[in-house]
């Protein structure tokens, strides 16, 4: 994990190696850089900015002289179905396909690629699992050993003020009522799903990221190609360079999770978002704590809204007591990414929330053992794109089936994967696929979705999140929920709109007040870098930064100048830093790509929409264990 590194991208490999050795010898526990308050700064346009981006998606290799003569042929293999992403949706789809194949005694080759080094290592969620989809997928999940060990026993909801707590009764019928649900460590649950899938014969390849979508001549999706390896930080080929592999399929399922990078491409390619609103998101940060046994209440679910966020910033907290032997609690904080103040730091809001008396009393005397963060969808019904296109389909949180007021998306993600499998199976095993395009187009999936409980659920809650966009903010939203959802069950005839793109919501820094965050005390709250260390994240250092900028000059010219560099605050891993230039006046953006936890917040919230997150070399990223 590296902080301010003065090396420009011109040094030789030896220089890099020496720098790395020296830095590795020092323990890097430097304090997070103090928040940069807005000051009037003239842009020094004459300053020489070192190049930041070297990725081939921005600088194509066919025009790059360093790549002349390098063998670019790829090994290719055929499967019936290829699934991108080993999360609940992808694995449920794979399992369902193999279950159908077994039932109907047909052969089906299903390959699943996942960028994490092991299934579950990039999975992060609260989580309270509603077992509806699981009951359909594996009615005997208990006998199979699914890690649903903590049924919910207590359900609390509070509105917090700086010192006090206003309890809100958790009436049956309210969306976030958790009766019948289980608190799970989703990473472990996903790992278990992976084992079930392997037993059924799914070929799972963790550690290989899908980096490119492949197309037939007729424009339909042909499959994917995994990431190349062995490209140096400056974009040139190393001795160990090897091309990724192509996996061709009749249908490719994209289950990359919230704001997938291939999905982003597919939206443009097939115009899938022309009839829906742009997706809106939130960032969720999470920690796992081992607490004092006396304070442990296994099965207890606590949610809160209010402090430390103001009434116009959507967000809240969760704290779940797990029942898995140790006195473990999973807790976290969610902040809607439509926030307007560029000085807001979701990470620091999370850290200071833990100091609230109601929360601190649970955590006092405890030890933090894990940390992670991930963006999540908040758009719901209004933001659902078209999910099928020639040769492929989108499943899970990628199109976004999360039920926001219920704070659950796993059950709908799993169900969408299962519906996709059920729609695909007859087509892909048919003698004559009768398809107009080489890649199969299966619109039945979308029809099945619309007839399923996913659609009913999302329709019923569609107005709750947008109802927060009123003068009273949080309180207006709660009143709306109480009236229209609890009483009328979402049957009102109108559909409220969201506020638009999250990246367009930031106000210029000079119109906002900087937020004074308390210093972390090292017992309840912590600094960013020690948190990132706990996520176990790591990437091969000598590769082009995977946080690519379309234009290297925009961060300083736009993000820093107008918004005071919000990326240094919203990134939960300290990837973005504005550091002074070595020579002359002014600042430059430094990207510490190795810290990235693959949350996708920067790609979502960048006010210039200049950051394009692409997938790094496979098996890089966080090493979450049961988050």
């Amino acid at each position, binding site marked *: 994990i590296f902080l301010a590194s003065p090396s420009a991208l011109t040094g030789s490999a030896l220089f890099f190696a020496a720098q790395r050795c020296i830095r590795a010898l020092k323990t890097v526990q430097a304090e997070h850089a103090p928040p940069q308050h807005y000051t009037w700064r003239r842009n020094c346009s004459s300053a020489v900015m070192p190049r930041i981006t070297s990725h081939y998606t921005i600088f194509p290799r066919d025009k790059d002289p360093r790549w002349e003569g390098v063998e670019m042929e790829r090994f290719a293999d055929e499967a019936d179905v290829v699934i991108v992403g080993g999360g609940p949706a992808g694995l449920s789809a794979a399992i369902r396909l193999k279950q159908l194949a077994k039932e109907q005694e047909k052969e089906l080759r299903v390959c699943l690629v996942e960028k994490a080094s092991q299934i579950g290592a990039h999975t992060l969620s609260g989580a309270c699992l509603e077992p509806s989809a699981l009951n359909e997928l594996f009615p005997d999940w208990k006998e199979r050993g699914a890690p649903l060990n903590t049924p919910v026993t207590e359900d609390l909801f509070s509105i917090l003020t700086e010192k006090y707590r206003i309890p809100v009764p958790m009436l049956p019928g309210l969306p976030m009522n958790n009766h019948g649900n289980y608190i799970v460590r989703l990473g472990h649950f996903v790992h278990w799903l992976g084992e079930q899938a392997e037993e059924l014969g799914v070929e799972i390849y963790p550690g290989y990221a899908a980096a490119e979508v492949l197309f037939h001549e007729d424009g339909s999706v042909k499959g994917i190609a995994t990431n190349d390896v062995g490209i140096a930080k400056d974009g040139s080929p190393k001795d160990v360079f090897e091309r990724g592999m192509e996996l061709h399929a009749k249908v490719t399922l994209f289950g990359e999770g919230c704001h997938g990078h291939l999905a982003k491409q597919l939206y443009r390619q097939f115009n899938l978002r022309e009839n829906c609103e742009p997706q809106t998101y939130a960032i969720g940060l999470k920690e796992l704590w081992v607490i004092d046994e006396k304070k442990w209440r296994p099965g207890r679910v606590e949610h809160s809204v209010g402090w430390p966020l103001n009434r116009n910033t959507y967000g809240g907290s969760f704290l779940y007591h797990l029942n898995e032997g140790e006195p473990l609690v999973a807790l976290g904080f969610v902040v809607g990414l439509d926030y307007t103040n560029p000085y807001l730091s979701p990470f620091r809001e999370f850290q200071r929330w833990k100091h609230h008396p109601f929360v601190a009393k649970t955590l006092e005397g405890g030890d933090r053992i894990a940390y992670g963060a991930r963006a999540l969808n908040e758009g719901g019904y209004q933001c659902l794109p078209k999910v099928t296109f020639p040769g492929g389909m989108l499943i899970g949180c990628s199109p976004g089936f999360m039920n926001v007021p219920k704070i659950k998306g796993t059950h709908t993600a799993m169900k969408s994967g299962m519906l996709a499998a059920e729609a695909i199976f007859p087509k892909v095993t048919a003698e004559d696929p009768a398809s107009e395009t080489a890649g199969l187009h299966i619109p039945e999936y979308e029809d099945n979705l619309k007839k399923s409980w996913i659609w009913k659920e999302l329709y019923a809650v569609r107005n709750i999140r947008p109802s927060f966009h009123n003068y009273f903010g949080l309180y207006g939203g709660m009143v709306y929920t109480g009236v229209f959802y609890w009483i009328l069950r979402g049957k009102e005839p109108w559909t409220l709109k969201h506020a638009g793109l999250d990246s367009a919501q930031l106000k210029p820094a000079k119109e906002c007040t900087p937020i004074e965050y308390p210093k972390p005390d090292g017992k309840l709250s912590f600094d960013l870098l020690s948190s990132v260390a706990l996520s176990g994240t*790591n990437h091969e250092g000598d590769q082009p930064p995977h946080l690519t900028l379309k234009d290297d000059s925009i961060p300083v010219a736009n993000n820093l100048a107008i918004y005071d560099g919000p990326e240094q605050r919203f990134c939960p891993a300290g990837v973005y830093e504005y550091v002074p230039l070595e020579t002359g006046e002014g600042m430059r953006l430094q990207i510490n790509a190795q810290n990235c936890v693959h949350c996708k917040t920067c790609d979502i919230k960048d006010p210039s929409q200049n950051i394009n997150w692409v997938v790094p070399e496979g098996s890089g990223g966080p*090493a979450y*264990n*049961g988050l």
Partner: protein
Amino acid sequence: MSRVLVGVKRVIDYAVKIRVKPDQSGVVTDGVKHSMNPFCEIAVEEAVKLKEKKFIKEVVAVSCGPSQVTETIRTALAMGCDRGIHVEVSGKDYEAMGPLQISKIFAALAKKEEASLVILGKQAIDDDCNQTGQMTAALLDWPQGTFASEVTIDGETVKVVREIDGGLETIKISMPAVLTADLRLNTPRYATLPNIMKAKKKKIANMKPADLGVDMVSRVEVLRVDEPPTRLAGVKVETVDDLVAKLKANGTI
């Protein structure tokens, strides 16, 4: 032409923050990200390079442990090893397993497979023992080239450049021999997906230590594992006199 045995160990990934188990008997390993020991990767790469240069005919990857180590053997196979041997050790035996038991296993396998070279990583990043290679050589009564940063085969002898405290030492040893790989020996290649797919078809033989006549009883018992003590904050002083006074006060001088 000859056969090489390469040892690969499955260890907790170097970037993961480890946690001591609540009962202080060891470190939490359940669900934690594991990968091949970095020095073992270098050993595998060297063996595969020697095979590519046609000095040796077959590379056999060996790992000892529970069923999960087969993933590590598969990675070695994907890097170019021809076949694998999984020596099953689990439960208490696995927790107590150390260099002595491993070296006995490797010695037995080296004789059984008629290997001319045993290449290991110089040490594992979880226990930092740096003993297995040396013990294996002693049990076999074979010469050893440890901390190798360069290996050249010349007929029936091997020239090894070793990294030592004073610099570099070049030795010539006769085969059969045991080599242990140090950091600068080579840069390991990636295990790419097509090779992982091919590796699924390569054979991994299963056996138990008893099949090799090795007794896994450990003569070492771990009493307790603790976190290192938290580093206390430093104290800043204004003058040299203050410094001397403080040092006197806490008994340092």
